[in-house]
């Protein structure tokens, strides 16, 4: 399996989590005026883990990060770091550093002085400061820019300096608030890869806030999905994609078809689709990923265990290696199907999927 490295990383993370988490967020609540921004959020972060807090704008993800950094005070709950109460400390007493969304580099200081700021505050010896700043700049490949002013740097370069300025302090936990959102798509992908390898290299726990689910999937050891101030699901990227717990998770992370129907007498029924299902009887929702549906074009032997249906092609979108089809079954259900790219399809076609891929989700 390709997933071995990932799942190994995740399992060690969950083992250390059980023993002693680096950060333990315990039923945190936060209100701004009459709006509850966070409700009963509990989350643990393991040593050396890269956790992504994923959510739409307004889901409370930045507020959660600001609570950890100390820029906001929780209205309820506690935060512990290595067993010690964190939420009552002012931000300047926490061994946590932040990479801000718009970098927040000091415009009146050179790149070197920006990176040295935290060390000077902590009264690190002069000689040590210059070595550590140089190391940090080398780590983000910006060594030759030490004398520049931040305004002379591009967005991507400022991003690296912000990272170096935080990492040079050797924090126990690094918080990143949508650090890549201001970069263009290509640079962004490149920085994602660099960030991940950097995190492995320094071994510091990262909490990464983003609204971009692809970014979350690409980077994280675990993803924590926030929805309107509550945690929807926390799992590894593979788990959260393959086994979404709720309809919201299934449709927020990747693309999915939500099939609403009933389970009765050991059979699931969604419109004209029927397959055996041993779950508890009653109304249910299933998530069926577009790539789990196959086109039966007569080249492969017909799989009699698969759920089969006939549907009309309504739309076909070319996406390079794959095509996205929008198909409509005779009873009016619209489904998305992702298949390997091929010529244009028209009229009615036969499709099938394995019942095991229809994942039961909560609404």
């Amino acid at each position, binding site marked *: 399996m390709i997933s071995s490295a990932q799942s190994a990383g995740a399992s060690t993370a969950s083992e250390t989590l059980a023993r002693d988490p680096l950060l333990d967020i315990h039923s945190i609540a936060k209100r701004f005026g009459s709006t509850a921004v966070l409700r009963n959020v509990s989350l643990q972060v393991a040593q050396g883990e890269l956790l992504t807090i994923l959510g739409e704008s307004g889901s409370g993800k930045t507020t959660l990060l600001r609570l950890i950094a*100390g820029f906001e005070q929780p209205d309820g709950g506690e935060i512990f770091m290595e067993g010690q109460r964190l939420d009552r400390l002012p931000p*300047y007493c926490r061994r946590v550093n932040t990479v801000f969304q718009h970098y927040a*580099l000091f415009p009146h200081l050179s790149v070197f002085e920006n990176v040295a700021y935290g060390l000077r*505050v902590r009264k690190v010896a002069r000689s040590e400061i210059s070595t550590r700043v140089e190391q940090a700049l080398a780590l983000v490949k910006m060594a030759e820019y030490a004398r520049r002013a931040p305004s002379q740097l591009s967005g991507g370069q400022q991003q690296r300096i912000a990272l170096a300025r935080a990492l040079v302090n050797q924090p126990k936990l690094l918080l990143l608030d949508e650090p890549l959102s201001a970069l263009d798509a290509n640079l962004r992908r490149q920085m994602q890869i660099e960030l991940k390898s950097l995190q492995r290299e320094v071994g510091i726990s990262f909490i990464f806030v983003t609204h971009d689910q692809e970014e979350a999937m690409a980077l994280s050891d675990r993803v924590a999905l926030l929805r309107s101030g509550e945690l929807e699901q926390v799992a590894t990227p593979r788990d959260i994609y393959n086994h979404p717990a709720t309809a919201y998770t299934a449709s927020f992370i990747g693309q999915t078809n939500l099939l609403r129907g009933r389970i009765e007498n050991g059979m699931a029924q969604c419109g004209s689709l029927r397959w055996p299902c041993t779950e508890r009887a009653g109304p249910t929702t299933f998530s069926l990923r577009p790539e789990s549906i196959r086109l039966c074009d007569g080249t492969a032997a017909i799989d009699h265990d698969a759920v089969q249906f006939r549907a009309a092609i309504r739309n076909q979108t070319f996406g390079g290696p794959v095509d996205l089809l929008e198909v409509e079954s005779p009873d009016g259900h619209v489904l998305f199907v992702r298949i390997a790219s091929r010529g244009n399809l028209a009229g009615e076609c036969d499709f099938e999927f394995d019942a095991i891929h229809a994942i039961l989700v909560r609404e």
Partner: protein
Amino acid sequence: MYSRAYKSAVSLPPLVWVAVFLLAPYAFLFCYSFWSVSQQSIVHHWNLGNYRQLFENAMYPAVLFRSMRIAASVTILSLMLSFPLAYYLSFHSRRKELLYLLVIVPLWVSYLVRAYAWKTILGSDGVLNTLLQYAGVIRHPAEFLLYSPFAVVLTLTHIYTPFAFLPVYAAMEHIPRNLVEAAQDLGAAPVRTFWTVIFPLSLPGALAGATFAFVLSLGDFLAPLLIGGPGGIMISNVIVSLFGAAYNWPLGAAISASLLLLVLALLFLVERLEKKLSFS
């Protein structure tokens, strides 16, 4: 695009304004400064005698230096008042608008009223002396309070502090709050954050405020007239008397022109310094 006729029509009024009310008077002033007075009338005879007199008569440089000293004191004092006030308002106040208004309101009160108020406070049977005598701190009224350079500095500081405050406050309001958070995030306590981030970033505003306070108080003539006394006379009072009772317009014009050049030189320096201090 606008037509040429439209452009000239639009630019004409301000040009006329500047020519009539600024350039022409200054040109007259400069001309006068090179003429002289003979038998109570102005002789249109070009010479540098007035400027020579500025240096030969020790009184003029002395008054000019005193004026600059007073203006510098006012500048420093008003900055010392403005910084904590602006910092508090911008970063820690929950009633920003109200406090801001309280700073601005005195500007709507006549200058004369404020100057007279200080006269009432500082006079020998004024509020302050009465209070001090009543409290037994002093037996006889303190005379140095009124009619002294001290009184002038106090009054001018009161009058011009809002002018110093406004640019400092504006500069602080423009400091991105995430810079303050970044400093705290990197371990800086509030005092350190102030000195390493907020203070340097509000310097361009402070420079603008200092320029206002200095230039305005350097040319002030009412405060020294009302409460300066003989020891608190400033350069503008000298100019006024030369244009008035002394009837020596050429010498008055020469002093005015010199003062104008001094201020222009100062503004030039400030602009260069401001460019150095801004980081955008």
